[in-house]
């Protein structure tokens, strides 16, 4: 079966995939069933300890899988496969520290934090900090940092979950009809107007599902749904692995083919048709186009990467996003023989961009509104100066632009900037011959080379480091970043409060020992196999580089359709959805526990009745979840960047104070509080430095090329140690209580 023949946009849409949709729905219903069962568990136990910590009773499977599933997050099944597809085998090194992540994340702090939490009766991470140092102020700082980081992260995760669901349901009739109905219902509400109704529907379904089961079932619901989600993830990967290897004809074949590959070019093209359409028609994503250049050895091959409407009564459509295959062997394979793709015969590809060209979008503006529409035809030349370097460039519009009367700007349009010396000289000559319209300026440009900056025309780039990169000239994983990621996964994983709270919940050290072993096997079964599967995907599903976020569901459908088991796709695509759900639910509970336990009960009303606390827990979990849903209505643009910023920021704040607090009797509140704030400040300053150095908060300044996490951790550890050394020792009773034999029995 040919990969190009599958309508990837419609994962559950075609007839054989009804079973997939049903599998997916059954899975979602099971999540609610578990929440209901968990709620029953709460009837006879201490409410807060049960609701936020599962009464410290987790056994091996529950503890191991909740730990693994929460750490895995949605990124493992969307962002990670996308990165493997885009950059190749080097992702094996990128994820390399997962070799030791289970033993680090659980073994470094696990036994000790569990013991300390038992001694003090702590239920949350700020509780542990507050009790260990006997400092309300320190506890409050910890609460503030958790709420700050996790709120951003929660909104980003809500968006991720909704986008995954939207991808899965594309093309399903019931879904499309419901989105239209929702759009009609919300037509009178102004702030919902600009939101894609399909996204809105997915956000509501995803958000309500997660908020309801988390609120109702508490920690046990989160843990047991995590267990189910963890099983789904590993089963999904283990089914896909042999299917992918067989389909590609053996892993050795796949690697040898990848060794010949050169990175694609990404840009826009124009297509024409002889006879105009009577009604609007769609050029779907996945359409293949061919351009036979004069005197060329082989044709140029393009895959449409985003569906575009071909308007009625027109003969040309511009700015069609495409990915160009550049590997000669791959072009031969896709144009002739068994694996040949089917080309669209009704569309004629107009001469595409030059391989050296840059493409992107710009805004064309005028200083004051005009009385009539200003039409700027396709092919108009402009000269502009880049903001940062001040270099002058010449660009050519790749589509028609209109600045409407009474307005000062046109919608963003696609442009081409010649990249070769010959092209630049020709462009300057053309600009002189055909000057751009007076009074029109070019603004807010975002123009990138069509070819990859690192790896273009270089075979072998997908099977060696640092891996190809579209914009960075040092490749995907230069040495400094490889070291950074060893810190990032293993060390910062140990510093996540969401992991720490799980470490407080297991029932015995025997459970911890068995769980470290279980998680080690679990990660071994997931992460390296994922690298293998999505390296195979490069061969099986070519040209998805511009939409690689969808490679996981695309691969799931491709592999299961091939063996005639469409329903299996439902289970496989449930894996990324499961991963996001398991992350969101635990973060939701972290924030509400911070508000109810750490702020209300411990600072405002320690004598609150259990009934009050119970009501507030339900209420705050629901309020926080609903607020995050509203936040995700207008979600932040930099999804993955926010997740990275918050994850590394939390580690920079919490790891050093926790390590010193648990293992160094001399550590005191001054040192650990200073370390927490210094870690926060150092990490944040790298991101703020990014605004100055790179023009964006989410493109942080990298001191000596290292990731901000390294700077944050270093500053935090150093500050904690130095400040502790120069300040008085901690109260003797605290040392006795937490470090001396029998100290845990001491009463204050």
């Amino acid at each position: 079966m040919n990969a190009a023949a599958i309508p990837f946009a419609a994962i559950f849409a075609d007839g054989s995939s009804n079973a997939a949709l049903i599998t997916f729905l059954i899975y979602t219903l099971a999540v609610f069933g578990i929440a209901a069962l968990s709620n029953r568990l709460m009837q006879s136990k201490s409410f807060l300890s049960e609701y936020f910590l599962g009464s410290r009773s987790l056994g091996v499977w529950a503890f191991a899988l909740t730990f693994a599933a929460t750490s895995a997050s949605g990124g493992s099944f969307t962002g990670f496969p996308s990165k493997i597809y885009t950059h190749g085998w080097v992702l094996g090194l990128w994820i390399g520290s997962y070799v030791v992540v289970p033993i680090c994340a659980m073994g470094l702090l696990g036994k000790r934090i569990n013991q300390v939490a038992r001694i003090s009766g702590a239920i949350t991470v700020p509780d542990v900090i507050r009790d260990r140092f006997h400092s309300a102020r320190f506890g409050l700082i910890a609460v503030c940092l958790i709420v700050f980081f996790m709120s951003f992260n929660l909104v980003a995760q809500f968006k991720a979950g909704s986008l995954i669901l939207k991808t899965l349901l594309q093309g399903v009739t019931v879904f499309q009809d419901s989105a239209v109905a929702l759009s009609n219902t919300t037509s009178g509400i102004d702030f919902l107007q600009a939101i894609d109704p399909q996204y809105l529907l997915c956000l509501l379904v995803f958000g309500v599902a997660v908020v309801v089961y988390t609120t109702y079932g508490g920690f046990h619901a989160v843990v047991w749904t995590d267990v189910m989600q963890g099983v789904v993830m590993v089963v999904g990967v283990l089914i896909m692995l042999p299917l992918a290897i067989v389909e590609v004809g053996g892993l050795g074949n796949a690697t040898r083919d990848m060794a010949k590959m050169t990175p694609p070019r990404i840009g826009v093209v124009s297509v024409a048709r002889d006879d105009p359409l009577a009604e609007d028609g769609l050029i779907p994503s996945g359409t293949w186009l061919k351009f036979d250049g004069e005197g060329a050895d082989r044709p140029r091959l393009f895959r449409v990467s985003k569906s575009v409407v071909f308007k009625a009564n027109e003969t040309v459509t511009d700015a069609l996003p495409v990915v160009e295959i550049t590997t000669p062997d791959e072009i031969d394979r896709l144009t002739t023989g068994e694996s040949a793709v089917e080309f669209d015969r009704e569309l004629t590809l107009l001469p595409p961009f030059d391989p050296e060209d840059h493409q992107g979008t710009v805004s064309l503006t005028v200083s004051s509104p005009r009385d009539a529409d200003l039409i700027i035809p396709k092919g108009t030349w402009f000269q502009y100066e880049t903001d940062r370097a001040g270099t002058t460039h010449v660009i050519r519009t790749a589509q028609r632009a209109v600045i409407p009367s009474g307005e000062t700007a046109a919608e963003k349009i696609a442009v081409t900037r010649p990249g070769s010396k010959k092209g630049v000289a020709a462009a300057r000559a053309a600009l002189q011959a055909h000057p751009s319209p007076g009074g029109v300026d070019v603004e807010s440009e975002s123009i990138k080379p069509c070819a990859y900056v690192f790896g273009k025309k270089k075979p072998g780039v997908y099977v060696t480091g640092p891996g190809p990169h579209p914009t960075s000239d040092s490749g995907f994983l230069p040495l400094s970043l490889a070291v950074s990621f060893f810190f990032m996964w293993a060390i910062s994983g140990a510093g996540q409060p969401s992991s720490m709270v799980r470490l407080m919940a297991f029932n015995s050290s025997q459970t911890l020992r068995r769980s470290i072993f279980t998680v080690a096997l679990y990660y071994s079964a997931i992460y390296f196999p994922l690298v293998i599967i999505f390296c195979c995907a490069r061969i099986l599903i070519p040209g998805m580089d511009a939409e690689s976020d969808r490679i996981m569901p695309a691969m799931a459908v491709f592999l299961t359709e091939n063996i005639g088991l469409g329903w299996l796709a439902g289970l496989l695509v449930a894996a990324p959805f499961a991963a996001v759900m398991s992350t969101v639910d635990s973060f939701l509970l972290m924030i509400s526990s911070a508000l109810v336990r750490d702020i209300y009960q411990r600072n405002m009303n320690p004598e609150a009745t259990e009934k009050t606390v119970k009501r507030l827990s339900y209420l705050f979990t629901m309020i926080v979840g609903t607020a995050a849903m509203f936040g995700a209505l207008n979600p932040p643009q930099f999804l993955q960047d926010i997740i990275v910023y918050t994850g590394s920021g939390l580690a920079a704040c919490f790891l050093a104070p926790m390590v010193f607090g648990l293992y160094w009797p001399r550590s005191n509140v001054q040192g650990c509080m200073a370390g927490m704030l210094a870690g926060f400040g150092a990490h944040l300053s790298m991101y703020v430095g990014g605004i100055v150095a790179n023009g964006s908060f989410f493109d942080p300044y990298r001191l000596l090329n290292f990731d901000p996490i390294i700077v944050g951790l270093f500053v935090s550890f150093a500050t904690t140690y130095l400040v502790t050394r120069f300040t008085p020792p901690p109260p003797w009773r605290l040392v006795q209580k937490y470090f001396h034999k029998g100290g845990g029995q001491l009463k204050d």
Partner: protein
Amino acid sequence: MSAVDPASETRRHEPVEFDPVYLNARREAIVVFCLWLTALIWAVPFCYLNGYDYDPESFSTTWGVPTWLFWGILVPWIVADVFTIWFCFCYMKEDDLGEAHEGADLEEEIVEMHEGGTGAGQ
């Protein structure tokens, strides 16, 4: 802890016996950290020296995986799993983590509140 306990202050200078759970946990944490360091020192330099330069003549695969990644990550992964099994079942001590004093911290604060103390405010 509203005031310094004179009895405990006198004991400050006496030889103390540390909690065995703390000592075991600290020793285990040091071993874990050394394992992480070993993994870092092996994997990153090995992969960098052997896998960051493509030569079509010398490029090879082992079990379908590029050889540099096979020896740099996949084999260490298996070794780390074996180490983890040893660590979990032979090295890590079975410790009694104690009973959870549910609500102890809260009770303490309520007492301090009624005594008119400063609470947990340092």
